[in-house]
């Protein structure tokens, strides 16, 4: 068990677990959080999991932990770790089963006041146009050959099918496609699971939410992103569905033997890994990138479906009902990036699990319009609470491998949430607060109750206080669609 005394305070929002804390640590752990936030996780395993992550071979710099941290499996949620390329390792469990789970934000010039009477119809239309639920089939079903094109092209494939615009692609992390995807490294079973699921939301904590831009903190950045106070926006949170889950599962199984072959000792079987330059490591990278591209295409199709829903309900009722893309970011991904670490530029594999990229102004890979303001960082709150739009900073490049938080972060177990909260009562409370709800399961709704999550405003205060992201706008929900 780790106690507060084991941590060294760097400043109000930065703490460190020194490498000397445990003999098998290869690097220290740096935590971006307030004292209060750290005290609240001391009775669970997120810090212990961060220390375990610090044992991965080939790590450079520090293992980083964001303020929305909570225990996961193997690697903590909110964790970031960079391994040296090409002889460091890649760990599928440090990326997660839902490869490229992420968030897309669409914005509009639709004033809430003008459409407040249409929100219920909008929630129903989104629910109808965007398939959701356990194992649900998607809006688009593809052949194996077509799926391989999705793997190679990501959002570019969606553009060719008429589901996207060039602006959508420009405003997506990696422009909607990770290079180096290799469909021959994806199992037949993964392909079978993926073929019917493109354009589907899934279940669990995935959602589509209609928000209103409630408050602007950086007028210039908001203007560049097209975020206008009092106007509607849409968030889409989902990932690579069964396709990504199966790819991760296949490689976590295979790597159980790989660690023995490479003589790698680990404190947890879920952290299994292989050197990036090994056949096993290269195969996983190729397959993982297929799942990442699948997820980019998946969210793109869902964005297209959301636009159809808006057109169906609002065309002719408001002057401009269109939704433009603000940005799309991943929060479960492994990527080769170059960062200045320990005073020198190094090519590394950055594992982000429950953490987002947050590149600062002038960083490579940003669309021209965002070069001056930095990369948008999307931080969805819990159901019924605020969400945030932030931007990456120069400090995030220097201190957090260009990374920031990904959400509110859970504090209550699903078991406790469903004992504490009745799904139908929660739905009624949300509706009474003016939030229109469509949910596939009342039990699932209860597990995602707002009280099961941290205060997203406090999480954002911590990343803003640590200067690894800057506030742009706060969003308030008016309709939620859950699988």
């Amino acid at each position, binding site marked *: 068990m780790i106690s507060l005394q084991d941590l060294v305070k760097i400043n109000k929002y930065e703490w460190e677990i020194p490498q000397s804390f445990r003999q098998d640590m290869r690097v220290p752990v740096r935590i971006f959080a307030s004292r209060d936030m750290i005290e609240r996780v001391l009775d669970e395993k997120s810090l212990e999991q961060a220390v375990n992550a610090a044992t991965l071979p080939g790590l450079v710099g520090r293992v980083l932990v964001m303020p929305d941290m909570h*225990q996961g499996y193997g690697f903590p949620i909110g964790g970031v770790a960079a391994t040296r390329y090409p002889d460091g390792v890649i760990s599928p*469990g440090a990326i997660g089963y839902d490869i490229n789970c992420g968030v897309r934000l669409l914005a509009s010039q639709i004033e809430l006041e003008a459409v407040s009477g249409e929100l219920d119809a909008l929630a129903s239309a989104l629910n109808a146009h965007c398939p959701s639920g356990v194992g649900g089939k998607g809006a688009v079903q593809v052949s194996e050959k077509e799926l391989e094109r999705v793997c190679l092209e990501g959002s570019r494939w969606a553009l060719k099918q008429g589901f996207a615009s060039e602006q959508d692609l420009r405003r997506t992390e990696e422009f909607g496609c990770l290079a180096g995807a290799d469909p021959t490294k994806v199992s037949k079973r993964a392909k079978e699971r993926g073929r019917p699921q493109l354009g589907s939301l899934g279940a669990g904590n995935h959602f589509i939410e209609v928000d209103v831009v409630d408050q602007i903190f950086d007028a210039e950045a908001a203007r560049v992103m097209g975020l206008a106070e009092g106007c509607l926006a849409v968030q889409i949170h989902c990932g690579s569905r069964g396709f990504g889950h199966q790819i991760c599962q296949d490689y976590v199984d295979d790597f159980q033997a790989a660690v023995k072959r490479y003589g790698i000792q680990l404190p*947890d079987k879920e952290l299994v890994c292989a050197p990036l330059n090994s056949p096993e490591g290269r195969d996983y990278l190729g397959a993982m990138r297929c799942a990442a591209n699948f997820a980019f295409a998946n969210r793109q199709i869902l964005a297209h479906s959301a636009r159809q829903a808006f057109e169906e309900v609002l065309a002719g009722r408001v002057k401009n009902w269109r939704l433009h893309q603000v940005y799309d970011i991943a929060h479960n991904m492994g990527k080769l990036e170059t960062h200045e670490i320990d005073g020198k530029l190094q090519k590394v594999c950055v594992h982000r699990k429950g953490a987002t990229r947050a590149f600062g102004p002038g960083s490579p890979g940003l669309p021209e319009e965002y070069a001056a303001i930095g990369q948008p960082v999307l931080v969805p709150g819990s159901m019924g609470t605020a969400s945030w739009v932030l931007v990456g900073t120069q400090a995030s490049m220097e201190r957090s491998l260009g990374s920031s938080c990904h959400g509110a972060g859970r504090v209550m177990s699903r078991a406790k949430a469903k004992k504490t909260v009745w799904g139908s009562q929660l739905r009624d409370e949300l509706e009474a607060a003016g939030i229109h709800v469509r949910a596939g399961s009342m039990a699932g709704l209860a597990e995602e109750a707002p009280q099961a999550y941290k205060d997203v405003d406090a999480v954002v205060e911590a990343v803003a206080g640590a200067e690894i992201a800057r506030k742009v706008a706060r969003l308030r929900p008016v309709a939620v669609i859950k699988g």
Partner: protein
Amino acid sequence: MGCKILYTEIMDHNAAAGYREIDHTADWELAVWADSLPELFRQAALGMYALSGVRVSGADFQAQTITLQASSLEGLLVKFLNELLYLGEDQQKAAQAIEVNLAGDKLHAALQIGTIAAQTKGIKAVTYHNLSIRQEGGIFRVNVIFDV
């Protein structure tokens, strides 16, 4: 339509074999125990179905077998449970009767499967996190964490 079978969420903790949900902040954790390894695997499967709220239609049971190989008992357990998850997603089927045989690094399971009539929650995958099958006082125990 036949009768529905609901995997019970309430277990007698003193029973020779069973499962119960453990608090886990983000995912689902299941404690499983049994007086034999095949029964431990069966209880883990029943517990997983209970967590995801699976209901099976009792009208159309069919026989199905699963054969798996892994380098460890824990690997066999993960693969077995993942195989059942896949059966649910691919064929919308769940096992009502499960008989497990273990021999060396192989598992053979004989199932009676029926159509899933309802499922309240989904499981993405079965994880290896801190997975360790142990024997304490003649009882086999394991804690399994599911990514949800």
